[in-house]
C-alpha cells in the first residue's frame, strides 16, 4: 500500500556549515552559563549528620552557605520573638543527629510540628551550633497524599 | 446485580462495535480522495504565499527596489516550479487536460517563465490571485474557485 514516497529536490550546495557553527556557538555559550551558574550558586545539600561531620573536619565550613534537610522534630517548634522561630530537625536515617534551626521570617503554611514534615533550610551554621536559616521550605509535592494508616485515624 | 448487567451490556456493546466491520466486511477509506491536499499543492501554496508576502513587504516599504527584484526573481522561479508540479500532479490524477487557469504549464522556456511571472504578479495586484490559498482565478471572478474566499478584485475596482 505504501505509495512511492515523495523525494525532495536536490539541496543547493554550500552553507550547511552555518547550521553547525550556530549550534556549536550556542552550545558553548550555554555550557559556559551553566558552568559558571553552578559553580557560583551551588550549595551543598546535606543531612544533619553530614553537616556535623563536615564542620568537625573543617571548621571553616561554617562560613559556607549550605542547605540542610531533615525530619522536623514534633513539638520542637518555639516562637522566640515576633516572627522569629526555633525548631529542631533530625536526620531521616539517624534520629540521634539533631540540628537546631532559627529562622527570622514567616514559616511556610505546610510547616507543622504535629505531623511528619520534612524541612529544608538554607543558611549557615553559627558558632554557637545553631543553624541560622535564611530560607525554610517544607517538602510538599507528593506530600499532599496520605498513607492508608493516616486515614484510619 | 444491576451493575453486573450494566457491565455485561457494556462489554457486549464494545465487542460488537469493534467486530462488526470485520464481520460485515466494511472498509474505511484507504486511498487519497480527489482534491485532497497533495505535497505539490502544499508547496505551490507556500510558494505563492511567499510571493504574496514579498509583494506586501514591498508595498509597505519594508523592501526597497533592489531587494524586491532579487527576491521576486528567486521566489517566482520557485512558484512557477511549484505550480508546474502541482499541475502535473493534478493531470496525473484526473487525466484531464489542464484547465485554462493553469495557463502555460505545458510549455517551458524563459519567455513563458517571464509571462507566467508577469501574470502571477498582475494577478496578485488585480485581485485575481486569491489572497487565501494563492489560486489564480479567472479574471472578473468574485470568489475563489478553490477555497471560496472573496477575491479582492471587487474592492480594487471600487
Amino acid at each position: 500500500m505504501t505509495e512511492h514516497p515523495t523525494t525532495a529536490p536536490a539541496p543547493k550546495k554550500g552553507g550547511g556549515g552555518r547550521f553547525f557553527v550556530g549550534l556549536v556557538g550556542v552550545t558553548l555559550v550555554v555550557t559556559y552559563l551553566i558552568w559558571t551558574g553552578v559553580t557560583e550558586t551551588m550549595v551543598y545539600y546535606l543531612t544533619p549528620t553530614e553537616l556535623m561531620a563536615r564542620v568537625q573536619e573543617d571548621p571553616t565550613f561554617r562560613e559556607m552557605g549550605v542547605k540542610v534537610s531533615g525530619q522536623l522534630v514534633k513539638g520542637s517548634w518555639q516562637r522566640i520573638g515576633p516572627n522569629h522561630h526555633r525548631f529542631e530537625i533530625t536526620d531521616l536515617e539517624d534520629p540521634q543527629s539533631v540540628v537546631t534551626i532559627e529562622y527570622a521570617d514567616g514559616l511556610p503554611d505546610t510547616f507543622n510540628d504535629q505531623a511528619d514534615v520534612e524541612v529544608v533550610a538554607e543558611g549557615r551554621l553559627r558558632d554557637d551550633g545553631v543553624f541560622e536559616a535564611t530560607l525554610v521550605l517544607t517538602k510538599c509535592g507528593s506530600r499532599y497524599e496520605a498513607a492508608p494508616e493516616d486515614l484510619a485515624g | 446485580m444491576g451493575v453486573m448487567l450494566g457491565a455485561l451490556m457494556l462489554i457486549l456493546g464494545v465487542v460488537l462495535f469493534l467486530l462488526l466491520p470485520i464481520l460485515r466486511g466494511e472498509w474505511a477509506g484507504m486511498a487519497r480522495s480527489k482534491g485532497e491536499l497533495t505535497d505539490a499543492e502544499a508547496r505551490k501554496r507556500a510558494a505563492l504565499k511567499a510571493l504574496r508576502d514579498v509583494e506586501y513587504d514591498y508595498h509597505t516599504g519594508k523592501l526597497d527596489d533592489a531587494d524586491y527584484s532579487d527576491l521576486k526573481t528567486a521566489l517566482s522561479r520557485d512558484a512557477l516550479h511549484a505550480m508546474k508540479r502541482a499541475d502535473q500532479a493534478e493531470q496525473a490524477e484526473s487525466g484531464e487536460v489542464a484547465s485554462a487557469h493553469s495557463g502555460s504549464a505545458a510549455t517551458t522556456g524563459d519567455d513563458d517563465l517571464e509571462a507566467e511571472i508577469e501574470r502571477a504578479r498582475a494577478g496578485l495586484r488585480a485581485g485575481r490571485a486569491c489572497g487565501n490559498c494563492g489560486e489564480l482565478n479567472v479574471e472578473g471572478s468574485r470568489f475563489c474557485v478553490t477555497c471560496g474566499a472573496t477575491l479582492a478584485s471587487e474592492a480594487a475596482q471600487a
Partner: protein
Amino acid sequence: MTLLGEIALWVALPVALWGTVLSFVGGRQDRGDLVLSGERAVHAVFALLLVVSAGIIAAFLGDRFEYWYVASYSNRDLDTYYKISGLWAGQRGSLVFWALLLSLFSSITVFGNRFKNREFMPYVTGTLLAISSFFLIVLLFANVNPFERLDFLPADGQGLNPQLQNYWMTIHPPTLYLGFTAFTVPFAFAISALLTGRLDARWLVLTRRWILLSWFFLTNGIVFGMRWAYEELGWGGYWFWDPVENASLLPWLTATAFLHSIQIQENRGMLKVWNMGLVTLTFLLTVFATFLTRSGLIESVHTFAQELTIAVIFLTFMGLLTIICTVLIVWRWPLLKTENQIQSFVSRESAFLFNNLIFLGAAFTVLWGTLLPLITEGLMGEKIAVGPPFFNRVNIPIGLALLALMGIGPVIAWRRASTRNLRKNFLFPMLFGIGVFAAFAVAGSRQWMALTTFGLSAFVLAIVFVEFWKGTRARARIEGEGAARAFYHLVARNRRRWGGYIVHVGVVMIFTAFAGEAFDDEITQTVNPGDQILISSPFGHDYTLEYQGVSTTLRTGNMAWQAMAFLTVSKNGRPVGTMTSEKRMYFTWEAPVTEVGILSSPLEDLYVIFEDAEDLAGAVQNEAGSQQVTLEVQVNPLVGWIWYGGLIMTIGSLIAIWPSRGSIPATSVAHVEPEPAAAAV
C-alpha cells in the same frame, strides 16, 4: 456507578491494545476493515474512559471513603466543586484524566479525518492507541489504580489541602493536561509520516492547528499556575524554579521552538530532521512532566525508591519511544534531506535557527538544574542543590537574547538581509530601545538586567507597532478601505503572522513584568492597632497602611476559625480601601493556613502577609490584648502585566488558530464502502 467505572477501566485496556494492533496491521496490509475496527476502538476507549471518570466522580460525590483515592482528597464537608475536581487532585486520578483527554483528542482526530488523509490515518490511530494503552497499563499494574480499596471504611476523608482549594488550582492542572495530550496528535502524525515515508510538506500542514492548540493550553496552564502560586503560596513570587514547575516549562520551551522551526520547513524546506527530533522531544517531555507532577521523584533518591514501580515503567516507556523514533528517523534520513542551506547569518532563517537553538539551550539548562541534585547524588554520593539564583542567572541572558530575536525575526529578510534592509527596518526601533534604556539609566537606576529588558522590550514593541502601522496603511491605500476595516482584513488574511505578533506583544509584557521584580520593595513590621506601615513604589506612589487589629470569626464554613488582620490603605494621601490578610484553621488541616491580601492596580500590586501573631490563641478569641502581629508588606511593580500579557498571548494564539474559511479545499464525499474480502487481494 463506581464499580462500573472500575470494570470499564479493565475493559479499556484490551480494547486499546486490539485497536493498536489492528491499526498497524491493517495499515501495513491494506485491510480497510481492520483499520475501521481500529478507529472504532478509539471511540470505544473514549466512551469507556468517560465511564471510568464518571465512576470516580460518583465516588467523590457519594463520599465513598472506602476508596483510598477519595479518602485522601476529599471529606464530607468539602465543596461539591472540589469533589468533582477531585478527579485530577492526585496522581491516580490525574492519570485517568490524562488518558481521558488523550482519548478525546484521538476520537476527534479520527472522526475529523474519516474522509481524508487516509494514507496517514492507520498509523496515526495506531500510535494514539499505543500511547493510550501505555497509560492504561500504568493505571492497572503500577500500583496506581484509582479504584483501590482500603480494607476498612474511614468515617471521613482527609480533605483537600486548603492550598489547593483555590479557583486557579482547579483549572491549572486540566489546562496543562489539555496541552500535554493535545501534543500527542502531532506526534502521532509525525510517526505516521515516518512510517509511510510521506515526509513532504503535508504532515506539518495537517497538524499545525493541533500544535497551536497544544501550545495555547500549555501557555495558559503555566500562567494559571503562576497566578495560583502568587495568590496562594504567599511569598509574593510566582515562579520558584521548583522541579514540578520546571517539568511543565520544558515541553513549553521545546513546543515554542517547534512552532517557529516548522515555518522554516514550510518556507524553505529546511530543518526536517530537526523538526522530527523536536516533535519527539516535546512529546517525551510532556510524558515526563505528567509523570513528574504528581510524584516526588526528583526530590531525592529516597522518594525515587518509594515510587520505583511507576518510575521504572515510565522510564522504560520513554526509553523505548526514544529508540523507536531514532530508528525511524535514521531509516528515513534520505527523505529528510534539507532542500536549502542557510545563506547568511543575517537572515530570517538564521534568526529562526538561533531562536530554536536558544530555546533548546534554555530547556537544557532547566533540565540540568532540575536533575543536578539527583545526578550528583547518584554519581558522587554528595548532593548539590541549585536554586533560583542558578536558574535566574542562566536564563536571564537567554531571555534577553530571545527578546532581541522577537524583534529581529519578523522583519529581517529571508535568505540574506542587505545593509539597506537592516538600516531601513531596524534603525528607528533600535534608537527607540536605546533611548528607553538611557532614560532609565539617566533617572538613576543601575539595575542593568532590568534596564536591558526594558530597552529590548521597547525595541520589539516599536517593530511590531511599525509592522501593524505600515501594513494597515498599505492595505488601506491599495484596497481603498478605512483604517479599521483595513486593519481587520490585514489580520484576517494572515492570521498566523499577525496573531504571532500579538503573542509577541504579550511575551514582551511578561518579560517586562519579570524585570519589574528588580524594583520591588518589602518591609516587615511588628504592629499594634493604630500603627502605620509606610512603603513606596518605584512609580512614586506612597502607601500608608494602618493596622486596625485582628478580627476573628469562629466556625464558619469549613473553617474552625478565620482570623483577619485588617488594614486601611492610603495611596499618596488618599484613602483607597482596606486590605486583609488571614490565618485560617480548616477543620481538616492540622496547622493554620495563611491567606495573603492583594491590592492590584495596573502598575503595581500591594501585597500583605500576616506572618505571625504575638498571641495567636488570644487573637482567635478576639482578646483586646492580643492584637500585636507581624506583617510583611510588599510592593510588586508590574506584576499585573504577567496576567495581562498572558491574556494577550491567549488572544494572539486564538487569532492564529482561527480557521479561515475554506483553507483546505472541500473534500469529495468518499464514504465507507463495503468491499468484499475477495477484492482485497
